[in-house]
């Protein structure tokens, strides 16, 4: 069997809100799979169903062949779950938390120390500190250690990098890639689009739907429109002027540049350049760029909105 996670027509509603709208996808063994989307996309609901903590309205899901509803006891042994909110015991020390989780799963810290060594070693100097008094980055490392201590086959991580600074985020992804290389299947959710590039494959999610599933490279590669990066002295006026330009399909700030997509297909650069000259913009720079995941996500978002109307 190659599929580690199978999700078939999973639907979940809360009152009238559709949290998941007939979701389908598979994750292969040893894959690092990302669920990318903003708050309200359905990421947490999906991960809670996979870890047997929520029951879907309809549809089925399997983790390493086990049914997430019928085989919930097995699911809890083979999955390691790191919830979005910090949910360790704040009034236990670092070491006590880890021991608690190990004991609950009938194992010991020493038995699986190899698996968590890389991560735990960074917080071990603080092992007598209460978990509630750790910094954000350290809490995150402890939570990951606790999710790993029973040597799970599948690691389920709900927004582990939300609210975490850019340095700690980078370190966290480096840890995940090392775990993946040890053969653990990982499914991880994030609202940060730039983290898509760290995953083998990603599902872009929005309001209970999967907009697209593919490798990050192929999602960007399939983007049909040309993207131009534009810069000028006064970025504020530049944005306003391009928004008012008749050929504009979309224009959004992307760091120090604006990303511009035209309704037309030829002479795009010349048309825009002439227009910006006529608006007296200075030091104008226009160049083609490869679309990134955020370009793709926004394009897919607007498409869905338009179809819905």
């Amino acid at each position, binding site marked *: 069997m190659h599929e580690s996670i199978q999700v078939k027509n999973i639907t979940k509603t809360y009152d009238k809100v559709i949290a998941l709208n007939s979701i389908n996808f598979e994750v292969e063994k040893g894959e690092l799979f990302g669920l990318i*989307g*903003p*708050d*309200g996309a359905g990421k947490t609901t999906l991960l809670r169903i996979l870890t047997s903590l929520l029951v879907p309205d309809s549809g089925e899901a399997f983790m390493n062949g086990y049914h997430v509803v019928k085989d919930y006891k097995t699911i809890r042994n083979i999955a390691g779950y790191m919830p979005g909110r910090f949910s360790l015991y704040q009034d236990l020390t670092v070491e006590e938390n880890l021991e608690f989780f190990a004991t609950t799963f009938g194992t010991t810290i020493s038995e699986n120390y190899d698996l968590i060594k890389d991560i735990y070693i960074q917080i071990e100097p603080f092992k007598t500190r209460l978990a509630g008094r750790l*910094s*954000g*980055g350290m809490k995150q490392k402890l939570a990951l250690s606790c999710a790993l201590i029973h040597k799970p086959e599948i690691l389920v991580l709900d927004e582990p990098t*939300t*609210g*975490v*600074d*850019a*340095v*700690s*985020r*980078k370190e966290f992804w480096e840890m995940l890639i090392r775990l993946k290389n040890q053969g653990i299947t990982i499914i991880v959710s994030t*609202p*940060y*689009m730039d983290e898509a590039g760290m995953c083998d494959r990603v599902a872009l999610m*929005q309001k209970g739907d999967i907009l697209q599933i593919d490798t990050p490279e192929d999602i960007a590669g399939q983007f049909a429109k040309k993207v131009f990066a534009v810069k000028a002295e006064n970025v*504020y006026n530049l*944005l306003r002027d391009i928004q008012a330009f008749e050929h504009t399909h979309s224009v*959004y*700030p*992307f*760091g*120090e540049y604006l990303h511009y997509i035209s309704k037309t297909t030829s002479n795009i650069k010349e048309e825009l350049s002439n227009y910006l000259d006529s608006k007296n913009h200075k030091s104008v720079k226009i160049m083609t760029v490869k679309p990134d995941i*955020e370009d793709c*996500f*926004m394009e897919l*978002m*607007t498409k869905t909105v338009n179809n819905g109307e």
Partner: protein
Amino acid sequence: MENRGVVIQARNMVKKFGHFTANDNLNFDVYKGEIFGFLGANGAGKTTAIRILCGLSAPTSGKITVAGYDVHRQTESIKKNIGYMSQKFTLYDNLTVWENIRFYAGIYGMKLSAIKVKTDRLMKNLDLEHARDKRIASLPLGWKQKLAFSVAIFHDPKIVFLDEPTGGVDPITRRQFWDMIYETAHSGITVFVTTHYMDEAEYCDRVSIMVDGRIDALDTPAKLKKNYKAKTMNDVFLKLARGENVCPDSYRELNS
């Protein structure tokens, strides 16, 4: 920009908790109508500094004024002249849009007649006239964030503090939110903002980066990238916060 007037001035700002120094001699000015990015790793001391600047916590030492008022003695005047919004605390879910506005504006001492007139205008601008009597809980996150920001600047403060205002929102709403920030700054209100999105650091007029309680860099995004030989603000941040690079000479001279 220096001519526009200083709205925040910090000189030798120090905050100690026992033996731990959370803010280690901070020196900086923030100007009127500026978008000032306040970056740093978790635990670098950003929250401590913001609490002092909002008049919620007294510094251990230093001469600091916010909107012209002293943070040691005039905290109530500071609170009246600033706005604040964070991702965690925004509006009351169980109150309607109108009730929230009336509540906040009332706290700041605005007259009911003035609140009514301004609310009408705001509802029109945000295209939210239909939602005026809806409870906040029923609105999508993007709308809540935009509304929370509008409420934070409803009393025309001199400065608005935004603490990770865009966490978790979708990429289009995130950009619409920054549109509002630009407009606010253009209208003369200073925007003091923290974020973990490094592309947003590029949208700021100037950016400061805190490392271990100190401000290790403060400049325009363009100059920071040049000084640290970095392509993006993300690279600048990683270099500074990971300690892969010491301060460039230019900044060291400034502070010696």
